Structure formats: structure tokens, C-alpha cells
């Protein structure tokens, strides 16, 4: 499962203007893994994801895809390999769901090769998978936050890339839809895609990830399978949260149960 690495950051320094978030960071994303990046607020997890998706150029170091520096590759080539569900997006006035999802096909189109049936089925499949098919002709700005999030997810899916990056994909969703979306990504992972997600819910991360990257203050503190690395000591060290770890009865993965505070024995 983790035999090769297509995507990695190599000794990078990531900064916004002059505020350095991470320096000398090296991270491997195992191929065909479901990698989840977790950490407290402002630990640099979103920044790491942004650098993986070309949104943020490292001040030093390189981001490598299949051994080549991402910055030097043609943007559309990268876009056919790495898909992104960004945190903030703008929907143009009055755009319908099906139109927005179709925009995700852009990397596969060119001046000569316009709309084909492959594009058509990609869009349809994406909308079905995220359960927005009935909303197809509705305007995106009329939808609820949760519906809109699923539409954006559909757009990322329509890109049909072997590697999918997700920046906090479960925002705005109620628990049923959160699980539904995560199950969808798990299915994509089973089908052979590489998923890299930033999640803020530690238990979701432990449940779905087969490779966890734990960050704090811009550095990677631990990596590995959740069952191996998620311990009460780690959670307390990284998040400052006293807890105990039990086994989730359904998924058999570590389940974090906070203790202390209100529930002081």
C-alpha cells in the first residue's frame, strides 16, 4: 500500500509574505493511500495542502510529483493528475449546479477538444456520487451551505484525477452528509485513487485514514497508521487535550474520548 510515493514535499519552507509557517519540511504522501493531515488550529496543515496543490509556491525546496518539480510542470498536466477541493470558492451569479460541476472538466479540454461524452459522463457520475443529481438545474447560490459543499465536491470529482486533495471537505455538512462524503472518498480510495485530506475532526481522521500526518506549529510530529500512532500521549502533546483512547466498536480504529474539564471525575 505504501510502497511508492508520487507526491512529496522536499525540504520546503512555506510562508505567507514574511510569516514563515514551516521550514525544512519533508513529507511523503504514500501512493494510493488515504492520507489525512491533522493538527491544532494554525499548525500549518492547510498550508501544506496548498503547497501540494500548487496554490502556494515554497520559498525554498520543491514539491515533487512523480519525481518532477510541480512548479516546472505545465499547469494543465498537473491539473489532470491532482484535483483539489479548496476551502474558499466563489460561484458566479446564477450559475447552475450542472454548469459548475462541468467547469471541473476544464483540464481535459482544449481549444480543439471541446465537450465530449466522456466529459458528460464524468459530470453525471460526479453529481450522482455526491447526491446532488436532483439539484442539477438549480442555481448554486440558492442552495444551503451543505448542498453547496457537495456541489463543489462534485466539481472536484468531475476532474477525475488519480490524486485528490481535500481542504476541510466536511465544513457545513451535518453528520449524515459528513459520513456520506467521507465514505465516498473511502470508496474512491478503494478504487485506487490517492486521497489527501485536511480534517479537523480527529475521530473522523482516525476512522478513515490509513496514513495519518500529525502536525504542530508547522512541523510534522508523527506519521503512520492511526492504530499505530494515535495515543493519549500524542493527543495531549499536540492538542493539549487529556483523553483516553478506546477502540471504535464499528471501525476498530482508535476513538478519542476527551476527559477532564467538565467531566472531571
Amino acid at each position, binding site marked *: 500500500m505504501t510502497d511508492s510515493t508520487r507526491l512529496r514535499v522536499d525540504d520546503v519552507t512555506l510562508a505567507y509574505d514574511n510569516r514563515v509557517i514551516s521550514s525544512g519540511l519533508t513529507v511523503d504522501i504514500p501512493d494510493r493511500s488515504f492520507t489525512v493531515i491533522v493538527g491544532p488550529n494554525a499548525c500549518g496543515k492547510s498550508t501544506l495542502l496548498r503547497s501540494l496543490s500548487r496554490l502556494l509556491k515554497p520559498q525554498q525546496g520543491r514539491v515533487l510529483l512523480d519525481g518532477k518539480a510541480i512548479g516546472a510542470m505545465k499547469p494543465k498536466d498537473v491539473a489532470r493528475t491532482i484535483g483539489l477541493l479548496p476551502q*474558499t470558492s*466563489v460561484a458566479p*451569479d446564477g450559475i447552475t449546479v450542472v454548469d459548475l460541476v462541468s467547469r471541473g472538466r476544464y483540464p481535459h479540454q482544449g481549444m480543439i477538444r471541446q465537450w465530449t461524452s466522456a466529459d458528460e459522463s464524468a459530470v453525471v457520475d460526479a453529481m450522482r456520487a455526491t447526491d446532488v443529481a436532483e439539484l442539477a438545474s438549480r442555481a448554486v*447560490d440558492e442552495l444551503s451551505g451543505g448542498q453547496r459543499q457537495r456541489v463543489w465536491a462534485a466539481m472536484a470529482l468531475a476532474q477525475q484525477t488519480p490524486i485528490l486533495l481535500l481542504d476541510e471537505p466536511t465544513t457545513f455538512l451535518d453528520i449524515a452528509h459528513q459520513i456520506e462524503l467521507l465514505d465516498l472518498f473511502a470508496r474512491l480510495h478503494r478504487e485506487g485513487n490517492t486521497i489527501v485530506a485536511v480534517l479537523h475532526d480527529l475521530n473522523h481522521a482516525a476512522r478513515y485514514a490509513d496514513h495519518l500526518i500529525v502536525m504542530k506549529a508547522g512541523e510534522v510530529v508523527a506519521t503512520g497508521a492511526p492504530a499505530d500512532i494515535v495515543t493519549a500521549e500524542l493527543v495531549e502533546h499536540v492538542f493539549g487535550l487529556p483523553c483516553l483512547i478506546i477502540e471504535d466498536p464499528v471501525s476498530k480504529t482508535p476513538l478519542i474520548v476527551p476527559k477532564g474539564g467538565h467531566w472531571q471525575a
Partner: protein
Amino acid sequence: MRLIGFVVAAALLVVAIIASMIIGSRDIPLASVLQALQGGPGSTPDAVVIFELRIPRTIIGVAAGLALGLSGALIQAVTRNPLADPGILGVTSGASFAVAIAVGVLGLTSASGYLWFAFGGALVATVVVYLIGSAGRGGGSPVRLTLTGVALGAVLSGISSAILLADPEGFTAMRAWESGSLQDRGWDAIPAVLPFLVIGTVISFVIARSLNAVALGDDLAVSLGANILVTRVLALAAVTLLAGGATALAGPITFVGLMVPHVARWIVGPDQRWILAYSLLFAPILLLVADIAGRLVIRPAELPAGIITAVIGAPVLIYLVRRQKASAL
């Protein structure tokens, strides 16, 4: 601490006033100024210049400046938009257009005649900009309001150009009037406008406290007990009186209302009462200084104060927007 600053600002204002009396195409020494003031109009040869030109000009500078500064602070507080200014948001354009109609079309040349047009224009412009600018998704955002104000200003100035192209005398008169110059305005408008400026100022300070609450957002303001509707309506009234009055006195002048509250805020922090108080002093200083600069820069000719405030204000606006974190709007 703030009180000390206030006193210093007041002293600076006095200096500016004195400078305004002294400097001009012909400098008049302070001693002569005092002499003329004591003796009254007609007492000395300089007295004519002092009483006919310098005094009304200075009074207009102080009054219009103060009004613009206060209305700028009010608009910025109510719309929570740091880039607001009665000029940019079209309020002064509305007032100016109404005056153009009054003077050009209806022939009302006395201030007491076109003053009400100025108020009306300011009021309508504010309401229009607010309604269009806060509509739809992303409405009420600084950019939206600004663009609406600019759009309105563009339309109104175009239409008044159209009207005046047909009337060469009106054209010349309005050309000078619209340049935002304090020169040659005479005493005419002052007694008519001043009482309304006073009312506007009083209203501003009355709502200052609620403005502090409104600055936190509508929901929070309501839970703090502020009456948003009343505050907004009173603010609207104050802005109309102040910006309309300033325009009636001095023509459309931009950027004073933008810059001064920022300087005030930079010195005293976010308390609206102090921001208003400092704006009350800083704005006239700014306008007088701009006017004085206009008298010096191309002596013996004069550059209208409105142009100087634009030339200073634009870089300030650019600096402010560059400093803000870029956010997708």
C-alpha cells in the same frame, strides 16, 4: 492623554485659521489682520480683502471641513466600511447635481434657494447608494457600496454636463463651482447653511455611543441594547445635513471624509465619540491646509482645495487598500 491631543489639535486649528487669514496672493501680516478685525470692514485698505475674501473663505473652510470630516466618520461607522467617504459614495455628487439643477435650470442663485436642493440631493443619493449597494449577495460590502457611489456620481456628473452644455453661462459658473474651490464663495451661503451644520453635528455626537455598538455588527449591537434603526436614521439625517451643507458651501470635495477618521482612529483608537471629536478638529485643519497650499502652489493663480484633497487623498486611499489583506469579495 486623548484630552491633551484634543487641545493640541485645537491649537493647530487656530494656527491654520490664522495662516488662512495671512496667506494669499498677497500676504497680509498678522498685525494688519488684527488691526482690520478691530476696526471693522472699511477701516484699513487690507480690511476689504480680509472681510470680503479671507474671513468668509476661512469660515467656509472650517465649516465645510468639519462637516465633511464628521459625515465621513459617520458613514464609515454605520456601513462598517473603512473606505467610505461622502464624496466616493456619491453623497456630494447628489448634492452637487441638485444644486446644478437649481442654479442651471431653475435659476436659483442664492444659497438659501439652492440649499434645500443640496440637502435633497444628498439624501436621495445616500438612500439610492445604500439600497443598490446593499442588494443581493455580497451586498453592503465596501466594494459594492463604493462602486454604486461612483456609478451614481458618474451618471449625475454626466447628466449635469449634458444640461450645462446647452447653457454656456451656466456652464462657466458650474465649472468653477464644481471644482471644490473655497475661493470667491462670498458670505452668501454661510448664514443659511451654518444652523443646519450645527444640528448635524449635535446629532452626530448624540448617536456616537450607539455607533460604538453598531460597529460590532447588527446582531451584537441589538443584544447590547442599541436601537439600530433609530441610529441609522439619525445617522442618515446627520450625513444629509452635514454633507449636503458642506457641498452647498464649497462644492463637491472628496477624500476629506475618508482620510480624517482614519487619522483620528489611528491616534485615539476605536471609540466613536473620540473619533468624532478629533475629526471635528482635524478635518477643518486638513481643508484649510489644502486651501492654503492651493494659494501657494501656483502663485498668484490658485489651485482649488478640492483638487489638492484629491491629489493627497488618492494615494492615501491606495495605501489603505494595499495594506488590507486581500480577500475575495
